[in-house]
């Protein structure tokens, strides 16, 4: 099919979920089945279309088509909107639609007994629509619009259980933190790369702005899966990839200052997050931090020039992280909403399907080679980082990151699935099939992906970069394979050793090094830090403006009154010297004046109306006087 024609109708893909969400929103909250049917139907349609697009892009190389139209003309500059279709877009489309389809199906089971069921699906569809919009957007402006929509949707979803104060707070936090980033992005639409990266940092929870991501776990688990696996967090990475030329502008063999910044931010994020993840006890928080670290990984890969590698890892990560989140969701569902992994355990036998799928996800995440896509993409990233001319430190640090990842994932596995059932997992049960099928599908994807990703036949990577993939078995044995193999093995082994005979009592690490553990458990006190600095500052600002407000409003009333009183006091002084008693009148008069001016600010409509009339009169006279 003619690519340009195709590009012209690209908008349909985001439009479908949007329409679906609107329809669902207008439904009565009792029409649960209809709502789910419509939303999922929309997803299926979008998925089919995306696959069609993807397939049609397969043949050509350097496939690149876009469609622009002038939204409106302000003075002489036209505001252009448009859609862009290239391998990146196509892949992202398929990924987003597929993953969110799985999530939709999953949440049919997960949200089964929530009274705001329909609205939930409306929000989900809306979110997907916005995300797809980001993917297909051509101009930075449109991208920004969709970007903000994504932010809004995530706000709605995270705060879905708004009656939980923590949820509301988390929603606000996510919204504001990402806003801080988006501010940068918004400037970036006129300015340059680094500011764009601010936006990316916000959405992808990179180091200074990562705090919202773990808190976002207050949302329903499918939401966590959608936001933190597939879509929103990926948006940042996607953004950087999309605007990569801006970053790479004027590069000396692939190194520019901005890219360097990206790299270091990414590295810090990755390492810090994986450190923190070691000490968490909330199943979803662990996953969240792992997400953060993985995103850091992707950023690094982009920064060092391995764009394709980064994107590939993004896709892979999307699948297995969605899998993990849905798995955790299934676990939570099974444990009746319990999220503390210390209370679980022994679920291996109770919920076998969840266990196996989860295990696949875990191995993909921690990068066990050969059959799990995570491994290959991670290889690629590490490889790219290894060849970074600037310094080797990122590579080393990321190696540590990988080690830690393997470690904490194993820890989590042991906590949750092995050992004896503890308080929460005692009465656990396997989830309904409507929740299990998505898990299986995603697990399948994870495994299948490992084929198209393997360095032996780096099909996807070459598809993205636009050249043909060739089968080279030798590449299976790149240097990093062994390294990471060793690392992963080490990590898993360490965790296995440490937690081998763990009985749900105090965490061995904690016993070993309490201070450090506490430090990590408290997430390095970064939130507290912000609490002390940013928020405090904001509060002060608010207080200041409030104060100003009061004084601006009735400042001059007080002034009058004060003046009156002052005169009063003075004149009383005169009086007491027995000069003039009549001055009392003046003071009372002045006080009365102040009081009467104060009357202006009674909350009475008519008073205001009168003031308006007088003002209009004054304007009229002024006009007449000028003429």
């Amino acid at each position, binding site marked *: 099919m003619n690519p340009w024609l195709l590009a012209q109708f690209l908008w349909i893909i985001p439009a479908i979920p949007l329409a679906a969400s609107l329809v669902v929103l207008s439904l009565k909250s009792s029409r649960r089945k209809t709502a789910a049917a419509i939303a999922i139907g929309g997803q299926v349609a979008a998925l089919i279309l995306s696959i069609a697009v993807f397939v049609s892009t397969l043949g050509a190389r350097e496939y690149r088509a876009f469609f622009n139209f002038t939204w409106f003309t302000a003075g002489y500059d036209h505001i252009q909107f448009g859609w862009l279709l290239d391998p990146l877009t196509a892949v992202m489309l398929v990924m987003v639609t597929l993953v969110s389809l799985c999530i939709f199906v999953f949440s049919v089971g997960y949200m089964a007994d929530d009274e705001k069921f329909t609205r939930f699906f409306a929000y989900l569809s809306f979110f997907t629509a916005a995300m797809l919009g980001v993917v297909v957007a051509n101009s930075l402006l449109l991208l920004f619009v969709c970007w903000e929509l994504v932010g809004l949707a995530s706000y709605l979803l995270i705060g879905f259980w708004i009656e939980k104060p923590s949820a509301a707070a988390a929603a606000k936090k996510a919204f504001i933190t990402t806003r801080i980033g988006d501010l940068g992005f918004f400037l970036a639409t006129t300015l340059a790369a680094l500011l764009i990266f601010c936006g990316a940092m916000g959405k992808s929870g990179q180091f200074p702005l990562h705090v919202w991501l773990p808190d976002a776990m207050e949302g329903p688990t499918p939401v966590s899966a959608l936001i933190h696996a597939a879509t929103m967090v990926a948006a940042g990475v996607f953004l950087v990839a999309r605007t990569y030329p801006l970053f790479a502008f004027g590069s000396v063999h692939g190194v520019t200052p901005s890219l360097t910044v990206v790299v270091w931010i990414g590295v810090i994020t990755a390492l810090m997050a994986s450190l923190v993840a070691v000490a968490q006890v909330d199943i979803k928080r662990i996953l969240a931090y792992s997400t953060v670290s993985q995103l850091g990984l992707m950023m690094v890969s982009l920064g060092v020039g391995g764009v394709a590698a980064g994107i590939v890892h993004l896709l892979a990560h999307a699948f297995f992280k969605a899998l993990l989140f849905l798995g955790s969701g299934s676990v939570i569902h099974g444990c009746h909403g319990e999220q503390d992994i210390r209370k679980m355990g022994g679920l291996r036998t109770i919920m076998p399907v969840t266990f196996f799928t989860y295990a696949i996800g875990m191995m993909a995440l921690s990068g066990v080679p050969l059959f799990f896509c995570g491994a290959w993409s991670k290889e690629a990233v590490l490889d790219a980082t290894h060849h970074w001319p600037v310094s080797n430190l990122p590579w080393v640090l990321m190696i540590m990151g990988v080690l830690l990842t393997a470690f904490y994932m194993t820890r989590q596995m042991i906590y949750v699935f092995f050992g004896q059932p503890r308080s929460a997992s005692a009465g656990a049960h396997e989830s309904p099939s409507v929740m299990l099928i998505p898990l299986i599908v995603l697990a399948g994807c994870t495994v299948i992906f490992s084929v198209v990703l393997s360095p032996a036949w780096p099909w996807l990577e070459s598809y993205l970069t636009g050249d043909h993939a060739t089968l080279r078995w030798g590449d299976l044995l790149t240097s990093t394979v062994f390294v990471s193999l060793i690392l992963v093995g080490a990590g898993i082994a360490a965790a296995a050793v440490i937690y081998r005979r763990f009985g749900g009592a105090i965490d061995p690490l904690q016993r070993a090094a309490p201070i450090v553990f506490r430090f990590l458990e408290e997430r390095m006190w970064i939130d507290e830090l912000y609490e002390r600095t940013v928020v405090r500052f904001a509060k002060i600002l608010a207080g200041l403006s409030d104060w100003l407000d009061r004084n601006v409003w009735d400042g001059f009333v007080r002034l009058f009154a004060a003046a009156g009183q002052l005169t009063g006091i003075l004149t009383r002084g005169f009086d007491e010297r027995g000069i003039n008693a009549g001055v009392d009148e003046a003071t009372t008069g002045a006080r009365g004046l102040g009081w009467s001016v104060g009357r202006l600010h009674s909350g009475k409509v*008519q008073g205001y109306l*009168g003031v308006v*009339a*007088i003002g*209009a*009169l004054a304007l*009229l006279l002024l006009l*007449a006087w000028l003429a």
Partner: protein
Amino acid sequence: MNTAAFVVIAIFTLLGALAAATLPRLIHAALSLVVGFVGLAAFYILLGAEFVGLVQIFVYVGAVAVLIVFTILLTRREATERDPFNWLGAIVALAVFGGLLWTISHSDFVWQAHVPNQDLTVRRIGDALMTAYIWPLLCVGVLLTAAMIGALILVYEEK
């Protein structure tokens, strides 16, 4: 004759309006408002906009006044009590009136002898409404519907 008619109508209208604004009892005020509106309609007819005048009577006397009266009935308790009068408002209103007078008297355009446009036939209004003003017409239709529904919802009390 025109000017004489004008003076009569003006006095009629303004007296009605003044009564509407100052009478202590709400019900009397509402009814004298009707007088003012009738006077206004007479104004329109005098100005050759017969249709507008009739619409004025139709809408204001037939609909708005009845609405007001009904509201008075439904809020009976206070409708019968005397309403306080705030003289500050009178001063402001007087000031505004003075300002308007001053500006009108200083504008020479309004005092020139203009040749008046010929009277407005219903057909012309209809043509204008159906061609140049079709969108405003539709919008007003929508607005009225919305207002009606909104008013219903506001006063509806479910048993």
